[in-house]
């Protein structure tokens, strides 16, 4: 296997790959408010890139600038090597799926989908063929003659997707594509969206506030806050190696310990945490010198619960009392009160069905927590 092949699924790792979308120093002001603050971003062909963040973080503004609805205050946008910054939306090789779907209420499903093709002056028969094809793809074949208000939410979502895809854009922009769907439909549609994306090979840029959605869909995620990127990386990188407390707590749940580095060697770091006082050993090095104040994130699912005390005293151990249990079916969430009145969140899969409703751990049980050297992550911010 050549080096080149290994980059196929990770083009951003390839130093020779040419980015498909290049965003250079993009800034957007609304009067005094800075929505997007000097962002640089490179997205590669065929990626499913997510912009993740809370409301007002600037993710939608950035997407709207890619579509051409907003003009950047500064910076340039290149798509497929062409400067798009001053090109109006109707001339960009980009289509958008709106959060509200924005289906034309006075047109049938077919006419909605054909709208973009007709604007391009494509031959009637060709339009008909392509509309039929795309309707088949989104499994709405029999609904072509219906008006949008005669469809369910999920069907409308698929019409919106079909309308945006039928023009075969170079980039598809999706604004909260699954936001209006209920949970079950959302999960199902996530996978459909991924299949369609890999089938067509179109570059997707998705805006979402739902971190689970971003995790499942994306090749890479950029987490945004107050108009800036906080961290960019694959879902695994973002989840397992967060760079800051903001990321660690925004993506999934986590326990954060504050402490100081007591030992920093090449293959591991030891942190002395206060409140609760304990030693945390992490099996990867850190660039931060000894004595620096840091934070350590330990994910709830990486902590082991036990009824019996550990044999030896070692780092990564805590003792506490179960103060709260959340039974979620496939797993349970425990809040364990440890020294210093701190609650540690632990999730553990319910592999064994409880006998007579008695769970492995009950309220007020004394439990012993431990985790692996590879579990924790050092955060410097």
């Amino acid at each position, binding site marked *: 296997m050549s080096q080149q092949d290994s980059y196929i699924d990770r083009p951003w790792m390839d130093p020779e790959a040419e980015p498909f979308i290049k965003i250079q120093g993009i800034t957007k002001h609304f009067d005094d408010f800075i929505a997007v603050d000097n962002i640089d971003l490179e997205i590669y062909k065929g990626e499913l890139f997510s912009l993740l963040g809370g409301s007002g973080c600037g993710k939608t503004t950035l997407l709207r600038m890619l*579509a*051409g*609805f907003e003009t950047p205050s500064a910076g340039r946008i290149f798509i497929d090597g062409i400067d798009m910054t001053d090109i*109006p*939306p*109707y*001339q960009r090789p*980009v*289509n*958008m799926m*709106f959060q*509200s779907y*924005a*289906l*034309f*209420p*006075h047109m049938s499903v077919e006419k909605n989908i054909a*709208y*973009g093709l007709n*604007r*391009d002056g494509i031959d009637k028969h060709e339009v008909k063929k392509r509309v039929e094809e795309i309707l088949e793809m989104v499994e709405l074949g029999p609904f072509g003659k219906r*008006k949008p*208000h005669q469809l369910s939410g999920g069907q409308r979502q698929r019409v919106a997707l079909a*309308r*945006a895809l039928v*023009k075969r854009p170079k980039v598809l922009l999706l604004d909260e594509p699954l936001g209006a769907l209920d949970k079950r439909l959302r999960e199902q549609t996530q996978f459909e969206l991924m299949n369609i994306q890999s089938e067509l090979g179109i570059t997707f840029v998705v805006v979402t506030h739902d971190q689970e959605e971003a995790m499942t869909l994306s090749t890479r995620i950029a987490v945004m806050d107050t108009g800036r990127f906080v961290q960019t990386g694959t879902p695994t990188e973002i989840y397992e190696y967060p760079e800051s407390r903001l990321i660690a707590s925004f993506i999934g749940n986590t326990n954060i310990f504050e402490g100081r580095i007591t030992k920093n060697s090449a293959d591991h770091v030891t942190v002395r945490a206060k409140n609760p006082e304990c030693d945390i050993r992490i099996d990867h090095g850190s660039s931060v010198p000894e004595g620096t104040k840091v934070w350590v994130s330990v994910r709830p699912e990486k902590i082991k619960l036990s009824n019996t005390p550990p044999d030896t005293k070692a780092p990564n151990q805590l003792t506490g009392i179960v103060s709260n249990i959340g039974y979620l079916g496939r797993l349970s969430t425990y809040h364990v009160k440890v020294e210093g009145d701190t609650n540690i969140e632990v999730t553990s899969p319910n592999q064994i069905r409880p006998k007579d409703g008695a769970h492995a751990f009950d309220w007020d049980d004394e439990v012993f927590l431990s985790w692996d050297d590879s579990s924790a992550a050092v955060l410097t911010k």
Partner: protein
Amino acid sequence: MSQENNSMAGFNTSSYKLPNTSLWQKLSHKLQKNWKSAVIFIPFFWLLLFFLAPFFIVLKISLSEATIASPPYLPMVSWLDEGIVQIKIVIDNFAYLWEDDLYVDTYINSVRIAGVSTFICLLLGYPIAYAIVRAPQTTKNILLLLIILPFWTSFLLRVYAWIGLLSDQGSINDLLLYIGIIDEPIRLLYTQFAVYVGIVYTYLPFMILPLYANMEKLDLTLLEAASDLGSKPFTTFLTVTLPLTIPGIIAGSLLVFIPATGEYVIPDLLGGGNVLMIGRVLYNEFAANFDWPVASAVAIALLLVLVLPMMLYQRIQAQEVEAKQ
């Protein structure tokens, strides 16, 4: 023992109270129901008394025979000897309207003037309404106020003001003479042009307001979606904005067209004797010729001319409501 008594008493009172409360509930429910029908009845009664009844009176007069008396028409129902009731329905008045070119021409003229005025109102009102909708919120309120502001002055006064502007010695002629575009005053007042100016000026707000109300509901992301799909601004207007504002266009057009057709004051004051509209003819029949039956027939025929577009409007509205469901 006393305890038992107490509990018994408690039981009794509760069992007596139960039907009482349900009776009260029934009563209040009935009252509520009646109150609801009363609310509907009041406007219904109002319309019956002041709209439907006069309509039938006018209809009756239109089917009567004219005479020189007071009132100037013969009764429709009269008692003959031997208890025979004679009902005399005269359709001559309507036939007269149909046969006399004056009336037919006046109707056509009225509809034409009202139609053209409505179209001009639409051409002027549509962009104004669109601009107001797209204006920032504070500006929007001021602009809306400006649209409604003319209503604070008497309608008659405003029409008289136009006489001052349009007459041979009026401000417009003065200005044109001063600039030197014309050498002698051009005739503006007592022309069809003056009537158009008057109607368009008076009824423009009735076009703008329903259009505004309709456009306010227009989802602007639809326009973005059209643009995103490759539609240039003007195509977006034709394919998205215009079709979605048709209900507003129809509402505004009817609000202008219907009263403009029967307009009396504006053609009388600004058109003089040169512009014949049905309102003036009706007035002449009624007040000058004292021919109440023909005047009534003119009114009924006018109603028919106007009822058709109204029914059309009703149907479109019903369809729209249906579509929303």
